[in-house]
């Protein structure tokens, strides 16, 4: 099966044609460089994204604490991740980079705070 992708490895934005079978890449064309082939392989075989959102804070100086996954997670699980984040509430001050949920969704990635949030003055 042929899949069409736009390469995002650089601003060139090559239009890739990926010949794929059963989730495995057979051949990539349209790429101007090797990065394109690697991108196509990743995107077809295991597409991942960094998920960012916000966690509701309770009793902190801000209403929301921005959060992110420490690594990209499978694209197919983004909405599941969002739903899980919506369930969370944070009542303690955090520093940017601090882990909020270890092994988020049972994955290797952690959910971490993206901003330092104190108690209200």
């Amino acid at each position, binding site marked *: 099966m042929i899949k069409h992708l736009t390469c995002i490895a650089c601003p060139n934005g090559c239009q890739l044609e990926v010949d794929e079978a059963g989730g495995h890449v057979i051949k990539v064309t349209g790429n101007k460089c090797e990065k394109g082939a690697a991108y196509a392989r990743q995107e077809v075989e295991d597409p991942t994204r960094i998920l960012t959102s916000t966690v*509701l804070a309770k009793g902190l100086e801000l209403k*929301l604490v921005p959060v992110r996954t420490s690594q990209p997670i499978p694209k197919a699980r983004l909405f599941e991740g969002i739903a899980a984040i919506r369930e969370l509430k944070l009542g303690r001050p955090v520093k940017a980079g601090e882990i909020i949920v270890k092994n988020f969704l049972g994955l290797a990635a952690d959910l971490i705070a993206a901003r330092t949030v104190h108690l209200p003055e």
Partner: protein
Amino acid sequence: MYDVLIVGGGVTGTAIARELSRYRLKLALLEKEVELAFGVSKSNSGIIHPGTQNPPGSLKGKLCVEGNRLTKKLAKELGVDYKEVGELIVIFSEDDRPRLLKIKADAEKLGVTGLRIVGRDWLLEHEPNINPEVLAALFAPTAGIISPYRWVYDQAENAAGNGVEILTSHKVIGIGKEAGRFDVSVAGGKVFSARFVVNCAGLCADEIAGMAGITGITIKPRKGEEFILDKKREYISNHLLFPLPAPTSKGVLVIKTSDGNPMIGPTAEEVADKEDLSTSDDGLKQVLESVKKLIPAVNENDIIAYFAGLRPVAGDDFIIRHEDKVPGLINVAGIQSPGLTAAPAIALLVAGLLKKNGLGLRKKFFFHRFRAKTVHLFSLLVTRISPLIRKDPAYGDIVCRCELVSAKEVREAVRRGARTLDGIKFRTRAQAGRCHGGFCTTRIMKIMAEELNLPMTAITKRGKGSELIKEERT
């Protein structure tokens, strides 16, 4: 039982309320919208006309000239900024000179003072941006500018201070008459009884008259689109600039406003729908084309806002009369331009009609004629701001950066009756600047939610149905 019920909370209704509030009367004003001035008045240009636009013999002409004088006095009493900037009706061809002279002669008949014809040299000196092809102009020094909404709010506030009940979100849906008494029903079930009803319901004046049994009035909305320029262009003109008037309207003007932003427009277009407030690509094109004849330097990119308003047209002249067929009913209809100017004169006329038809007007012992001026940082010199902040720190907490509005002013506006974001804008100018609320909307909403004890999802732009937020995370 009320002595008088005033239906309609625009400039006419509030002027009448304020005028009647000096007498020992039980008064209420009923407004269908969530705030005052949300109908015809909110899209007014803010011009206090000198009396050069309407012929002698018309009610409009007479009340305009009288209203011009009264406004000046009343604005002082009520602490509203009124600037007498003067107007110029300009011509570009000798062929137009006879019509210009006729306007001058007519206006003089009406009692307009200070009129004179000025020539090209005078114009080029006093209006450096005017089209150099200009030939002459009629200069009317008594033309002024005022903020139409603040004018309404401040009159209403003074009327309320003098005992008038100002009731918003009170839409009149029926008027019954029996035994010398009106029973006025409002949506939601309440009924107000009164000896007299004054109908100044703007676009709905025909419907209100109909409810009371008067069928001869028809209000035809005439739409006008106006475009507001950046405050940086405040001095693109030094006077109000008018072309020679056309039969249906004054034409497209360059308007100075009391907020500083110049305004260009309006268009004039008959529409069927009393709620049609849409603007159009054509309207913009038409306004730009016309206005560039007056001031070629007007630039489309200076437009920061636009809106459409509807003029409540009921024939050529105002209709202001006691209905002998329905004793006790006074109709004040068709109050389009120069309605803002004429309002205080209309109020006096209506008081006279009420008296003539049996309402006793006895003056109150205590009438609060004066009202303390509302503080607007934008109208103060920087040096005057410092003592204010020392008195109340919240004056130093700036919410709207384009127009310089503090948290204190926003809070104060809510306490004075603002219930919507538009109401805050009209009162304080927050969100009215070049960023259009991009920076201050959230802060204003928070202050409103706090003051009114409402969830953010209940904050509206201009009343029910115009909520800004669909869902709040809690």
